[in-house]
Each structure stands twice: as structure tokens, then as C-alpha cells.
């Protein structure tokens, strides 16, 4: 499974998000490939789940992946609560 965090630049916000995701997955023993991309390079790439700040919703409308939108990127509980159900759903498919 490939989980990708996305931000406008690919150097800050998405990295924070990716680190939060990594921690969550690690704690739960879930194996997945995580990456941090900027919007521009995300195009044409493939991912199973995209995690992004809520404000980027409009940029991700047509993205061919499940999109998880997060308000507080540093809040593990929030990211976990939104991401894990999607991960589990995909794993059960």
C-alpha cells in the first residue's frame, strides 16, 4: 500500500504529515510505503491513499486515490482517527 502526504512544496508540511503517519503505522504494526510529495510531482503518480491538509481539498478533487483531509497535521489522534479506517478498509478489500 502506498500512502502519500502532499503539500504545496514537498519540503515541510508534507514531511511533518508523513512523519506523523509513519509513527501511527509503526505503532500499529502496519506496513505501508509512505512518501511526501508536492502537488506538481504528484500528478501522474499513483497512490492508494493521499493525506493532505484540508485547505488543499480543491487541488485533489480528481486525484485517483482515497483522499484523507487533516486539519491539525501534528495531531496524531486526528490523523489516526481519519486515516486508519481508510487503511483498514483498503486492506480488507
Amino acid at each position, binding site marked *: 500500500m502506498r500512502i502519500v502526504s502532499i*503539500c*504545496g*512544496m*514537498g*519540503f*515541510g*508540511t508534507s*514531511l*511533518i504529515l508523513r*512523519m*506523523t503517519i509513519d509513527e501511527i503505522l509503526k505503532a500499529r504494526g502496519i506496513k505501508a510505503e509512505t512518501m511526501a510529495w*508536492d*502537488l*506538481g*510531482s504528484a*500528478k*501522474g*503518480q*499513483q497512490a492508494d491513499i493521499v493525506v*493532505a*491538509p*484540508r*485547505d*488543499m481539498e*480543491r*487541488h485533489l478533487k480528481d486525484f485517483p486515490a482515497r483522499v484523507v483531509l487533516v*486539519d*491539525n*497535521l*501534528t*495531531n*496524531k489522534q486526528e490523523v489516526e482517527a481519519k486515516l486508519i479506517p481508510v487503511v483498514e478498509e483498503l486492506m480488507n478489500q
Partner: protein
Amino acid sequence: MLNQRRVALLRFLLAPGDRVNTVATLAARLGVSERLIRYDLAEIGDWVRRKGAQVRHDPRSGICIDGDCERVLADLESVMRSDKPPAEYILTPAERHNWIMTLLLEQGDPVPIGTLADQLGVSRGTIYSDLHAVAERLGQYGLQLTKRPKRGVCVSGPETGIREALVALALERIGMDQLVLLIAQCEQTDRWELEPYDLPPGPCFRAALRALRAVEDYSGLGLTDVWFAEAVLHLAFAVHRVRQGKHAEFPGLPATDAPEWRTARLLVEQVEALSGTSMPASEVAPLAELIQKAGRRVCAAGRELPHSPDAVYLARRFAAVAESLLAVDLAGDSDFISGLALHLQPIPHRLAQSPPIVNPLLEQIREMYPELFAAARQAAAVLEEAWGLPVPEAEVGYLTMHLGAALERRRLARPRRHRVVAVCSSGVGTARLLASRLQAALPEVELVAVTSLLSLGETLRTCECDLVVATCPVPEIATPVVQVSPLLFAGDLRAIRDALAPEGYVHSFQRRGYPPMLSDVLTEQLIRLGVEAADWEAAVRAAGRVLVDNGAVEPRYVDAMVEGVRRVGPYIVVAPGVALPHARPEDGVRRLAISMVQLRDPVAFGHETNDPVSLVFALAAVDVDSHLKALSQLSSIISNPEHVARLGSAQDVAEVLKVVFPNTAGKEEGACGS
């Protein structure tokens, strides 16, 4: 005992350069399992111990040969060059076949089976079964293996087939990389010691090389290194064989005056003058055919030949299909179209010929770019239709590289600072992929030229550069050289960074064994309290100005941060009350730093849930990963609302530092670990 793979491995370990080799990188390089590499290393260890050296394996510098490397290399070369099949070396069956075929082709007269068995140190039975394989292989070149009772075996068939076989066998023995390197060295030193490699004699080789150079300058024929090397080999064998009275047979000259034929005629004239050997007119045709098959060089000096309209048309059609599959714009990418057209031009000639196209990177490409490979496969249908020939996987791999290059190009902007020249001897696709990978993965690097090994000298004379990054071995030059895979694996990137900035900011941290901590990056002079800002833009600019004042970024970086928010949205408000504006390294970052601005009055950024913002951390990153540790520490601080509140109301810098680095004694551990 050594064998082919172990010799390659040992050569690689002995090659100068400061890359760190691990079992994994060696396995990837040779395309075999890690277990096999461990086994090979043990055997190599036995061998080098007898030469007074040893294989060292330490976690910091990786696997290397300890001892007098030059002597070991000299011993290795003498083992390899002895014309008797060597005692310290087990020939693989393929090597035995090569050896037998080369002997038979050069001898002409029958060779007794017993002689072959003695020389190779194997039984007659082995030779008999080898001869089956040899006969089959010779058949590919239209040659027959004939057994003469009481006299032995010999090869018969057309001279053109014999030449082709000789060239292919020589290439197999020496390897393309090694041949290109050898040509570069011969040319540089004007010494032509080719005996160890069983190549045509020095004078023939020299005349061939000079002739090709002369014609290249005159006609603008720009061959890739690989094809140049192959052409040298062909021409050298031609001179050698003609001197022995063996002429190529060919049904006269064609009426056509195609450029390949003109160039081939020129070549024959030149080599005649340079070698003093009179070449019959029948020698022109095989050369014309070779030139037609050859790939053109991607060349810094802009000597690329114009593409044929057919190739450009095909490239556009290929782009149209790939574009629809990948949802990116390719037709508008003129680099992509011209690179692809250049690449496509000679392919139908190559596909129609044996031997098949090989792509040593095929597996890695497939693994790294599965979607692109699938798209290339599908789009290749356009080419198959136009050529009426199936396009093999190996070729699809090259097409994938072109697509990869185009997509990677999108991820990059205008890098600067370190000036790098990329050297690639195999072809246009590899060169372009390397170039794009370099620019995408190392934004701190400015790629000043992409060139082939044989034009490197000229490139270095005309442009200034700090580092040469090459996919092939490079003879000693004044500029530092790093050898890499065109796919640029993590180890390659590290090697390039180390070579570029041994004294650089990030690297001083890496040398001490751990990455920059938040305490290294967010220092006292980067903190401002009680700053007044009317709106989000003023707040971002205030945090940016702190970076500018500290020399961490150029003023344009601040504009880029603001522009980022305008373009994408207030996503940089990562947590309630906290904004983390940033742009990209190539937007003017000088060094890794984070500034912190506490706003006197919180401002709204337009974020749905996290407004208003009272803390702005502006991040300046130099690459994609050196700031990870610091960022993770910062992230764990701002994930704690209590910390955010304390930072928001802090009255002096000391109070801020207390929150950010609560335990000053263990400052290097950072505040919260990761």
C-alpha cells in the same frame, strides 16, 4: 578461484573513488543476490590474501580492499591477460566458447580438438559439448563449424560474418564500459597497448580511431560513445583483416547517396591514408550499415544531427498515447520530443538485426517506474505499427527512461550553486534520465552539461564545473568524479553530496554522526517576539525577513513562500495557531534554518479550523531530507497545545528556549526526541 563475476566485482572494489560499497549495493550493481555477493567476497578474500591484501568490511567505509591496491590490480590484469587460459581463474562455459571461437576465427586453419582441450585445461568431452554451442553461435553470423578428420575443426563462411563475430566476441570479452574507457585512455596518452585484450593490433586500432575522429569533425557525425567504440572496433578489425588479405565481399556500391554511405566512404578513405593499407571498395558497405544502426550522441557542443521528420512524427504520436495514459503534458515538452526522436531514429535498423537489444537496467527500471513502464509498453504499439516490428521489453525500458526523464523534469525548478557535468556513455535515454534524476533529487546542484565520455575533455575545457557525475568509469582528470547508476540510488546521492560539499553546512553535521537537530537550526538569533503584522502575508514576510537577516536565504525566497500560500492555500497552518511557511531549496536557500516569529496580535490565514495564527516558523531547507530530524522535533513541540500557548505568550527568548529545549544539558538530544 576467480571467475568472470568475481573479477568484475574485484575490479569495481579496486577502482578509485570514495563511494561506500555494501553487500546490497554490490548485489544491485551486478544484478545478483546478496548471498552470491557474500560468497564471491569470500573467494575474492582468499585470492587477494595470496597477493598480500585483504577484503575489509567495516560499517563506516563499507567493503574495500585493504593493502597495495595497485599491485593487486596489476596481478589481476596479468592473470587476465595471459593468453594461456589462466590457472587462477575458472572460465565460465560462455568464456570458453568465446575463447574457442576467437581462436578458430583468427587461425583460419583447422585446430585439433586435443590442442583446445590442453590449452583450456578441460577434457575432450567438454570440448565436444562446447563445440555444439560454438556451432550454434557461429550460425547466428552465417558461419559454419567444419570438422576435418585428423586435422581438427575450423570456421568457414563469409568474411562479413567473421568480422561481425570477431567484433561481438571482443566486446563480450572486454565489456563496453571497459572498451570506451580504453579508447579514452589510448587517445589521451597516445599509447596503444591492446594486447591484454586480444583486440586488433595497436596500429590498426589507432588508424581506426583517428579516421573516425577526422570524419566526425568533418561530417558532424555524432555517435554515442557506445556506437563510437563499436565503430572503432569494426574499422580496426577491417584494417587488420584486409592486411591479412581477407576482404569483405559485397555486391558493389549502391546507387544511393544517403549520408551514411557518404560518411562510410569518407571513413574508408581516411583509414586508408592513416594506416597505409589499401582498402577495397567492398569495405564501405559494412560501415554504412553500422552507421545506420548507430545511435547519435547527446552532445554538449550541440552537434546533434537534425532528426528525420519521421522520427519526430513518431515521437509525437508516442507522446500523445503516453500523455493520455499518464495525464501529463508531454507534447509540449520539446526536450522530450527531440530526445525521443533522436532515440527512435536508428531503432528499426537495430530491431531488424541480431543480436537483440540489451538493457542492463531493465529490471530496475521496471521496479522503479511500474506505471511508466506500463504506459511505455502501451504507447509502443504506435511504434510497432509504424515499423511493422515488435518492440522488445528491453526497448520499452529505454522508452520508459525517456518518460521518466520528462516526469522528473516537472519536479524541478532552476537549481544553482554546485556546477555538475553528467557523463553518460550509453545513450540518449540514459543520459537524459540521469540528468533529470540529478536535478530532481539534488536541487542544490546546477547541471551545466550532459556529455559523453569521449567529449568530456572538450566539455571541461569550455565550461567550469565542480564535479563530474558519470555512469561509466572515467580516466583520471583534475575534476573530482563520482561514478553512479543512471537511476541514482540513495548511495549514489550520498556519494555526490559528499563529493560536492565535504565542508558544507549540512555535512559538518553528518560527519559528526547525526543530522542537524532543532537546536542547530532554530538558534537564538532566529527568534523574534512581539512582532506586529497586519495580515497573513505580513506575518510570513516577517518570519522570512529573519531568515534573510541571518543570511540563510536570499530575499526572493520570501516571495516564493508568499506565492506558495497564494497558489495552494493556507495549508501551511499546520496546527491551531501555528503556521509553517516554506518554499523550495532552489528558491534561494543558502543554508538550513528555521526562524520563529511570535505575533503580537494573532492574524487570520483563512484556515477553516486552525486560525488565528500567533506563531510563524519559516523553514529553509537545502534538500529533501537533511532537515527531517529538526522538523520532527519541531512537530512534536507544536503538536502540544500547551507548548504552543507558552510560546505564544513568551516574554523573552529565554522562555522560548526553555520550551523548545527544556533540558539544556542534553541539548543535542533535542526537546522531545522523535
